[in-house]
């Protein structure tokens, strides 16, 4: 029974007043309408979930039948996307790239509560490393050279930001990350002999086959998701959340908060490096507007918030939702209105559902199977 509870908890922390009201009404209705369908379905699926829990529950958290169904459907949908969504391959590919960013942001900022406004500098570092290498060193350079180097540079930049600022408590870290982005943006202009300024640097696409390109992005994305979910559910994730909730308690437990904060930043910088390289190749180039500007950092944050911070898979879902709204569903509104609507949605989630939409869904599904525990 306790393990079941832990699952729900691992997925969901931080209960807000407004959110609990929303959840109560949601559950009340769920009991009536969804419950009629959900409960039998849950009974049907439970044996499968039980088998999953015995095998992998320890590592990735235990699930109920319906939760497992959601994961399977989402996974299946992603893997088979070229079959059903040829028209949407571009937004789906971008969604996958941004999912990597959102998850990368989450393992550091979402978990520890040390909010970074500078993650676009990290993805920018990766993109620009790749760009500068092919532009100035050798246009034919193999991906096996550019990719690891880009990730390495991103991690190094991450540590350069983190080491002076993460020793300190409070908002210093956020400040340094914020300033870093502004500085990076300026540098791309100041060093335009190297970076081509606002025009940016052209990078070859992986392939012109959109289906193949989609898989070249989705596979790394799923690997990042699995790794970070594992880390987030492990003791490391627990310590990172404890840092957010009560850093003194972490010290008192004999754990070095600074060490764990730095580690979370490394865990975050590596996916940011991966995502940055992917974006450079998907976009066929790297430039300050699509990589570096602070708005991009805030988009990553928005995706994590919408999905549900400190759950890894929530930000993944949030990224697809955000990109879907941004590039498909809200395009008709026009440039500014579309963004205004998106930011308003993020604000509404922050105020009324601060645990995130996907976490709400996850809990609602869990609650339907809840009577068994």
């Amino acid at each position, binding site marked *: 029974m306790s393990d079941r509870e832990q699952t729900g908890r691992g997925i969901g922390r931080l209960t807000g007043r407004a959110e609990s009201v929303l959840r109560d009404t949601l559950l009340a209705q769920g009991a009536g309408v969804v419950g009629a369908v959900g409960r039998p379905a849950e009974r049907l699926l439970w044996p499968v979930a039980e088998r999953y829990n015995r095998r992998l529950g320890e590592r990735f958290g235990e699930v109920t039948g319906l939760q497992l169904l959601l994961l399977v459907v989402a996974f299946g949908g992603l893997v088979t996307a070229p079959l059903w969504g040829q028209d949407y391959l571009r937004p789906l590919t971008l969604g996958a790239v941004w999912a990597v960013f959102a998850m990368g942001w989450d393992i550091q900022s979402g978990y520890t509560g040390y*909010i970074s406004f500078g993650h676009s500098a990290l993805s920018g570092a990766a993109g620009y490393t790749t760009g500068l290498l092919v532009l100035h060193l050798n246009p034919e350079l193999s991906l096996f050279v550019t990719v690891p180097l880009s990730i390495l540079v991103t991690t190094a930049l991450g540590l350069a930001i983190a080491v*002076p600022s993460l*020793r300190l408590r409070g908002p210093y870290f956020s*400040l340094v990350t914020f*300033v870093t982005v502004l500085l990076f943006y300026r540098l791309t202009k*100041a060093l335009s002999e190297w970076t081509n300024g606002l025009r940016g640097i052209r990078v070859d696409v992986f392939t012109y086959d959109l289906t193949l390109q989609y898989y070249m992005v989705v596979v790394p994305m799923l690997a990042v998701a699995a790794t970070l979910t594992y880390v987030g559910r492990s003791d490391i994730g627990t310590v990172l959340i404890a840092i957010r909730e009560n850093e003194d308690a972490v010290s008192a437990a004999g754990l070095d908060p600074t060490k764990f904060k730095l580690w979370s930043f490394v865990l975050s910088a590596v996916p940011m490096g991966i995502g940055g390289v992917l974006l450079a190749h998907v976009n066929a180039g790297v430039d300050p507007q699509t990589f570096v500007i602070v708005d991009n950092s*805030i988009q990553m*944050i928005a995706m994590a918030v919408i999905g549900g911070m400190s759950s890894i898979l929530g930000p993944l879902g949030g990224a697809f939702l955000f990109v879907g709204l941004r590039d498909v569903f809200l395009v008709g509104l026009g440039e500014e209105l579309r963004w205004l609507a998106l930011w308003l949605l993020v604000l509404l989630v*922050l105020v009324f559902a601060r645990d995130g939409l996907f976490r709400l869904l996850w809990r609602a599904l869990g609650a339907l199977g809840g009577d068994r525990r």
Partner: protein
Amino acid sequence: MLGDIASVIVDGALISAVYALIAIGFTMVFGVGGVLNLAHGALIMAGAYTYLSLVSDSILASVTLHPIVAFPLTVVIVGLISYGLYVVLVRTIEENVVITFLATIVVAIAFTELVTLVFHAQPYQYSVVPGVLQVQALGTRILYVELAAFVASWGAMGLLWYYVTKTDSGRSIRATSMSERGAMLTGVDVPGVRARTWLVAGGLAGIAGVFLGGIGAAEPTMWLEPLALAFIIVVVGGIGSIKGSVAAAYIVGYLQTATGQFLGQSVRGIMSLVVLVVVLLVLPQGLYGTEFVHE
């Protein structure tokens, strides 16, 4: 060389006064509620655009006010926007620092889109006080708008000083920033104090916005620099300390001006980052930061 130094002294004093205005409101809001208001830059932008709309006939054709009327009106309007932001949004979420932090930056970025929607992306130039003062003796020139900003800044700081030291309403703000519990025990209406602080901070941001827009231009990205500056100044001065903010505003202002003058304008912005890193490493609690007694 002498002229260079003289112009650094004069320019530094002028720009630092605006920096102080930017930072004080930011630090006050943090002092009384523990909220780092990342929409502070957006409030400054609101000041520039409000003033622009009131004085220029190209925006709202029916409204063209004289600067003498438009200026105080702008300050009041931005103060009210800030107050509204607190009452409508921040008050409902302020118990969670992370959520508040994120919500205020989202407000800032949403505001950028709103401004772009209404005013479009191009920069607007407007004049607050036209003209240039030639100072022959020093071989330097001063824009009247910079002079006006300097005077307005010190005027506002004087009023603020009077408010927080001589009036009950202002003293309760100071008491709350020293010890919220103490203030509450002595019967201070803490939620009221917070709302009032946002009002005052908004007013100060409004003043800063009018002059920043006047010296440069009003454009949808103009909130970023001031926010970064406010952040840096407040850390250098010690988070929550008004006195520290003023001192740090002058340090950062002068350093930037001097670097711009002697090392070139392109390194100017980098200087404040260098100061920031040095302060973080050597003096993390800032110039006037305090270690609090817990017992």
